């Protein structure tokens, strides 16, 4: 997945598609001539010393363990001791496991529902913040929740939503004598989704704002002269000119949403003292419980199988997302 992040702009020129449609002399740098220019030769010489160390580290620390995980997923293994080869059994079992399917469903809910909410809010905030007085302060304020460890929200959830907690104490004077059971097992996941929207929106707003700030003011002046509404300004100026930033944000969210774990772990399950209720499990939690729950013999085969499956399915999603979001970048 990370490869997609490093793919664009390796040479500082605008996106390839725009470039290849109308080749300009500069593109010879990319080596269209068979032998390559002297610059090209120099670049090739530098490839190994510059890329090599990072590449070796990346391979040793990420790619090899990932392949190792695939290997483990074909076995029945308690983490140490003998390994028993079982082929694709672990995968078949996971697909039959209702719990894995619901956990993966939760991951998709985070990815799409929370993701949509975050970006709608982030764009709305972007529009408001651009013209607002004191926008720097406002920006810091909305970014702040992102700096706080998810553990804090998990612990705070208790203070706020416990039967005798803050929300119910505030509702009592209003005549609410039978408030909802906020922390009932079925309500924990929706609460987690709301918390994630609140904490992550600021982060993406900040990134989008950086993109919006690059837009030269004369476009807005044009809009004002043409009598464009705020929505039209978003539709015809801001969105097209920040599309690449938005695309990167979407990929970032996809990747991070798949790994969401700690907030689920601390929100339910008593801040880590137990396993959270299965209704709030994500694919990452499912993986963790299989390997490290500490209450039963570790099942590394099943755990890695679920991790490999999530990785595969998410890789497909990222590729599809990149494809759907592909536009010619507008130069300005």
């Amino acid at each position, binding site marked *: 997945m990370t490869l997609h992040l490093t793919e664009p702009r390796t040479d500082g020129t605008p996106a390839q598609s725009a470039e290849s449609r109308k080749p300009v002399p500069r593109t010879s740098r*990319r*080596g*269209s001539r068979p032998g390559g220019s002297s610059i090209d030769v120099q670049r*090739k010489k530098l*490839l*190994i010393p510059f*890329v*090599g160390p990072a*590449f*070796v580290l990346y*391979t*040793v620390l990420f*790619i*090899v363990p990932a392949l190792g995980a695939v290997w483990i997923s074909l076995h029945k293994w*308690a*983490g*140490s*001791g*003998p*390994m028993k080869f079982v082929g694709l059994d672990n995968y078949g*079992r996971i697909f*039959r*496991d209702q*719990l894995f399917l619901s956990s993966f469903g939760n991951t998709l809910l985070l990815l799409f529902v929370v993701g949509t909410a975050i970006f709608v809010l982030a764009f709305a905030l972007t529009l408001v913040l651009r013209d607002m007085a004191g926008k720097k302060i406002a920006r810091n304020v909305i970014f702040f929740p992102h700096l706080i460890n998810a553990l804090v929200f998990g612990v705070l*959830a*208790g203070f706020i*939503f*416990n*039967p*005798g*907690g803050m929300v119910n104490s505030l509702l009592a004077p209003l005549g609410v004598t039978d408030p909802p*059971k*906020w*922390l*009932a*097992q079925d*309500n924990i996941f929706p609460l987690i989704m709301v918390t994630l929207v609140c904490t992550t929106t600021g982060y993406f707003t900040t990134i989008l704002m950086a993109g919006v700030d690059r837009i030269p003011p004369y476009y807005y002046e044009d809009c004002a002269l043409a009598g464009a509404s705020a929505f039209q300004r978003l539709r015809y100026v801001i969105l097209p000119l920040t599309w690449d930033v938005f695309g990167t944000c979407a990929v970032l969210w996809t990747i991070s949403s798949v790994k969401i774990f700690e907030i689920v772990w601390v929100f*339910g*399950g*008593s*801040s880590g*003292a*137990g*396993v959270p*209720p*299965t209704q709030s499990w994500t694919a990452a939690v499912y993986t963790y*419980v*299989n390997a*490290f*729950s*500490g*209450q*039963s*013999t*570790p*099942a590394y085969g*099943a755990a890695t199988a679920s991790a490999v499956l999530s990785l595969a399915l998410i890789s497909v999603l990222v590729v599809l997302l990149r494809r759907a979001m592909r536009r010619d970048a507008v130069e300005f």
Partner: protein
Amino acid sequence: MGKSARHLRPLAALLGAAFALSTTACGGATDASTAAEAVDISGSISGQTINYWSMWKDGEPQQKVLAAAIVDFEKETGATVSVQWQGRSNTEKLVPALNTNNVPDLVDGTFAKLAPVIGETGQASPLTSVYSYEVDGKAVGSLIPEKFTSNGVFKGEDGQPWMVPYSISSDGIWFDAAKHPELKAKPPATWDDFIEVLDKLKAGGAAPIAADGDIAGYNSTWFVTALLRLKGAGSFKALIEDKSGEGWDDPAVLEAARKVEALVKGGYLNSGYNASKFPSQQQLWANGDASLILNGSWTPTETGSYAAPGFEYSSFQFPAMGDKPASARVDFIGFAVPAKSKNQAPAQRLAAFMLASKYQNALGTEAKVLPVRPDAPVDPAVESVKAAIDAAPATHLQNDGVTFPGFMEKVFFPKDDELFLGKTSANEFIGKMKTAQIQYWKDNS
């Protein structure tokens, strides 16, 4: 992408090199464990060094007792102990370490955590020599009550013990004896007596039982203990091991589920127990807003800092049902020695050393936990639990020692939670468990 093929070639070479590098780095990691023999540990261990990964963190009461014991051990034997106070995650760190040749010489943890990781995977040394080693003039084996070991709980596949406990934990139904002297004077002996007590307490206006319903392990204690009362220690494990799932048709199993259902339907559980976050319910109990809580022997130390002034901890055992002798829950905390450790003798000697009365007494009076030796004194707050253990004819482990991969977390806990949180009836619970268990064994055998 065709243009960049030339760039890919050197990258491919690098990839190959990186692979070679990483595979040699991990070479030999998956060596099968070798069946270890018991070693003679009686000789001099002066000058030898061991690495000990502790489940305690610096500053915890138990850590202080262990640290003091280690100082004495080093002075007495001339061996050196290099300790890492890792905390409870030491068993999780142990798993990857066991695949290398760089293992700790000594680890400690609860039986529930050590057994799946090191005991049942054949990665632990037999500690037979520790059990016969003499401490305070007596063999270690004779210092540990026979009922703790008679069911072979510590025995590995080779029939030899792989764990030496130095401390235990248990559970009970806790109450404030200052507020309820009548419970201390005459604890409810049978389930009917218990329900009578609950009705009386409920009539007084306060909810009788507090429960942190978000901890599945606490919730399951009700059903599991009820079943053990009806069918005896080991019956829950036998029920789960049954691949046909037919055990769930036993009327006694339904009876146990009905007991839990009765607590829920009877309104004996504090309102909000099904929608709160630990430790809010046990805080509420310690403040006196609920009279009873079923919880571990650690309750006095865990709630001590926020208990109402004058709170006097006492407990009674889960009430008896039928004519089966009631077993007491005993979970063990103790040492294991990885089979790959090269310093077996000093590691095993330290495991034996902790059984000396000096440190056992310190565990009881300073750390305020239950020492494994029955002759060691304990803090008044846990005296009621100790008395129950001493009197019990047999003991059982938490969840009756069920550790099948993922069974508790993925199969039992979710369904037991539904029963305890009032979402399913006893009958539905039995039906769901039977189906799920049959499926589990189809997938896991």
